[in-house]
């Protein structure tokens, strides 16, 4: 029991931090531009695929740097030549544009890399168990993922609180309409934020690719979860995104690791059920089964009872 | 009986008190103006009466019924309509549709999805008549968002009066207009609100003293005086707080 708990916590942490790497970029972009970028997870997928292709020539480490930069540049170009054009048609059009982009990127990935899963592996140097607990191994690569994620947050925190550009961005988050009046080049800042945000997503893809497998559906799998996180955390709140990321990561990890289900609950309550009853799908549900829908359940509940999210102040 | 009664009305945002213990009675048929320096809480007072904001304490009675903390649509249905300081219309709908929508509830159509608007003769006639009244008949098929500013203000007024409400709140109806436009607008307001009870917030003192039967002066969320125009003009407290600093008819709007 105890070992299950520890590993579930560690795995939840890995997932949660990974999710936050996506959610932080998404939140920054939303705060600045008011756009919920539907294609955010698609950039994450591109990160994984770019890193895979680059690593074929150079190995993992150069890809770790190059792939996110490429993704970021691509993101900036999308902002400059796509999103900016759509901006004048309003937020719904922007949301639909990013939705179409997500669709397009998935098709493009299939075009360039095919439908099959790519054999994108973690570097050999990290291919060892970091420690063994109760006979179970914890891979060093996962520790590396945690390390990278935390390093990124520290860097992000530093940039946001200690640098000029960070302070402008913060001002833009809290007072979205006034920054333009200060004479800063807002379009350039938008492009930069979009580039950095998508670059972060790309980095998440680079480090997650080997663990979560690199295949054309990987954006779909994570995309709506990241969306759920920024909404649950409160649109535009970085702290909320962090809390929600960890919450969802841990929740899913615990749900998968546990073997509890409705039968246990019913036994405990002393209720029995008929085998052939039409509703017995419900009575036989187990936590691992419903793990994938927990985030959406949480989302719907949060939106009903607290539409601005856990940490949100602004409602769009 | 007075039509509208504000009793001990207060509103605060966080620790900031915007409206402090306001008591006011408006008689049926009265034309009442609320004046006061910028930030005195005039718009907030309107938002409280019309249901846009909830009150912090106190009560608002309209025709003897408490209306504070009710939804705007409930208050509107009782016969209390308002216009907005910043034009607040349906920009993509045509001018005609704007007016027709504003008439729907009062003419009993409610949420009907079984009646066709095209066949609603009385409704359409009333819409045409109202368009004539506010002088926008020639513009009836234009999307409302494409009207000129003064025309949008006229439409704003038209939407407010369409429901046939007994009491109408007008929030700075001539703000931002040229002198000629303002004169026309005032004539229009007089015409369409004849026989109705009116409360208006306005910065143009000439218009206020010209139109109002009674004037209330709001300073820092408190009503410091409420009386007929001639008495307000002579009131030392008002002059000190307001008129003494701002020349009547001055352009601080």
């Amino acid at each position, binding site marked *: 029991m105890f070992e299950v708990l520890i590993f579930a916590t560690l795995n939840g942490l890995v997932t949660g931090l990974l999710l936050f790497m996506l959610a932080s970029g998404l939140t920054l972009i939303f705060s600045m531009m008011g756009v*919920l970028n539907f294609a955010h997870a698609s950039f994450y997928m591109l990160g994984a695929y770019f890193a895979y292709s680059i690593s074929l020539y150079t190995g993992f480490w150069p890809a770790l740097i190059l792939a996110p930069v490429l993704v970021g540049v691509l993101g900036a170009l999308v902002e400059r030549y*796509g999103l900016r*054009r*759509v901006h004048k*048609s309003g937020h*719904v059009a922007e*949301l*639909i*544009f990013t*939705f*179409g982009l997500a*669709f*397009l990127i998935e*098709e*493009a990935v299939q*075009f360039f890399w095919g439908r099959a899963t790519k054999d994108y592996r973690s570097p050999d140097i990290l291919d060892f168990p970091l420690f063994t607990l109760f006979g179970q191994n914890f891979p060093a690569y996962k520790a590396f993922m945690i390390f990278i994620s935390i390093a990124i947050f520290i860097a992000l925190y530093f940039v946001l609180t200690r640098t000029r550009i960070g302070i402008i961005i913060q001002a833009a988050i809290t007072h979205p309409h006034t920054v333009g009046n200060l004479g800063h080049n807002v379009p350039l800042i938008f492009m930069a934020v979009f580039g950095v945000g998508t670059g972060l997503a790309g980095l998440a893809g680079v480090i997650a690719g080997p663990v979560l497998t690199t295949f054309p559906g990987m954006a*779909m799998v994570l995309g*709506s979860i990241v969306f*759920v996180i920024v909404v649950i955390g409160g*649109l535009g709140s970085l702290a909320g995104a962090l809390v929600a990321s960890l919450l969802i990561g841990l929740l899913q990890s615990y749900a998968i690791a546990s073997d509890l289900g409705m039968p246990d609950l019913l036994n405990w309550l002393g209720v029995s059920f008929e085998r052939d009853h039409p509703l017995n*799908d*419900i009575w036989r*549900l187990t936590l691992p*089964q*419903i793990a*994938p*829908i927990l985030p*959406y359940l949480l*989302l*719907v509940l949060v*939106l*009903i009872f607290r*539409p601005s999210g856990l940490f949100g102040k602004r*409602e*769009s | 009986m007075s039509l509208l009664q504000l009793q001990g009305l207060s509103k605060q945002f966080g620790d900031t008190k915007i409206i402090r213990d306001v008591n006011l009675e408006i008689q049926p048929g009265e034309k009442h103006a609320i004046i006061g320096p910028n930030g005195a809480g005039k718009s907030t007072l309107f938002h409280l009466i019309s249901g846009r904001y909830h009150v912090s304490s106190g009560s608002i009675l309209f025709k003897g019924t408490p209306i504070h903390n009710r939804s*705007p*649509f409930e208050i*509107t249905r009782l016969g209390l*309509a308002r216009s*907005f300081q910043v034009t*607040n*219309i*349906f*920009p993509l*709908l045509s001018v005609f*549709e704007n007016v027709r*929508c504003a008439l*729907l*509830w*009062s003419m009993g*159509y409610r*949420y*009907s*999805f079984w009646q*066709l*608007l*095209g066949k609603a003769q009385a409704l359409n006639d009333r819409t045409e008549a109202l368009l004539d009244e506010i002088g926008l008949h020639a513009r009836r098929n234009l999307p409302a968002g494409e009207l000129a500013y003064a025309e949008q203000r006229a439409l704003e007024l038209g*939407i407010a009066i*369409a*429901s046939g409400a007994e009491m109408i709140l007008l929030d700075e109806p001539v703000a931002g207009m040229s002198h000629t436009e303002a004169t026309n607008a005032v004539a229009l307001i007089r015409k369409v609100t004849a026989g109705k009870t009116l409360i208006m917030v306005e910065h143009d003192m000439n218009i206020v003293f010209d139109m109002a039967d009674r004037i209330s002066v709001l300073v820092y969320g408190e009503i410091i005086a409420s009386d007929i125009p001639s008495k307000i003009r002579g009131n030392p407290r008002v002059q000190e707080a307001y008129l003494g600093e701002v020349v009547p008819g001055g352009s601080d709007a």
Partner: protein
Amino acid sequence: MFKFAVWIIFAIVIVLLPQFFTSLLSVSILNQMAIAIVFALSYNMLLGQGGMLSFGHAVYFGLGGFMAVHALLGIEDGDYFFSVTLIPLVGGLFGLLAALFIGSFSTHKAGTVFAMISLGVGELIAASSLILVSFFGGEAGVSGDRTYGPTFFGYDFAQDIQVYYLAAAWMFIATLAMYLFTQTPAGRMANAVRDNPERAEFIGYSARRVRLISFVMSGFFAGIAGGLFAVNYEILTEQNLNAVTSGNVLLMAYIGGLGFFIGPIIGAVVLTLMNSVLSHYTTLWMLYLGIMFVLTVMFLPNGLTGFLMMHRTPWHLGKIRLLIKPYIVTSIPGAVFALSLVAMVEMAHSSEAEFVFLGASFNSSGIVSWGVLIAIALGSFIALRRSLPALREAWAQANAIDSGEQK
């Protein structure tokens, strides 16, 4: 009178269509179109007319469809005596119930909150459908048979063409009903709430109630579309209520044009045709669809219908002919450019040594082939760019009101 004539012509067209398109494939495409039209129109009740952006509209389509299949199964088992012609209504009523339940909490706000709830509910139901096997049938889905019910004037609906007339009749009724809804007080207030929910409250309407009515109506018609799907395909799976289907309907409505009643109809027809025809010729049709969608959002924010409607002013001014020549001059290099890009994409994707495109044969790894295509692409692109100023000039002229000639 004019509007009445439009509906008569519409009815005649849908009755006559199978006379011209008789093959099995074309009848099956017609059936798909009928279903897609109802679904896309129901979606536009939300987005175009009510301002509610939904990412989970397939929920009502799918739930209605599943219920309809269960109704088919009930007929098959002899549980009740019920005509297959009324099956779409079963789907519609179930869609309505589902929309009533979900709408009761999701229509509180429009905008992002509504969009996110619709996304969450969509994912929730799609994921649950794989768990709740007795109703949704798991991965395999639920299938039925439409031929068991009592015959309808001798029709037993064994053939697709019979299903076409059933689907077309329902499509006509649903389209008419949805059009009439836009002409009612509730329909018009949906537009008003879309434009300005706050002001709607100050003219006596609860914005939330107005949205709920549109939402429930939309769920009803989506359910009818789902019921038609059930009759046509006799099977429903998780795919019919997941995000892909929700995305598709958004695509149809948007490409067709949200601002016009006819927009989603055009979108449904064009996309169904593209899906069927393109998927016949290339495995990459989804890629082209994605590109087309993104380009539409960027360059035609009002969709195909919006593009057509832009020509109303030149038409009324009698200047439409000014545009004919510039359109031809621009569209020829435009089409060549697009086709050369497509050729390159297809050639890069082709695994065979010889690549045939529009009758021309290329060596897919040969430098010459690539060189030729790149040259054509570049040449046509330059020609396209050169033709644009003349087009803009002609457009300005065609829209200018000459002095003394008022419209």
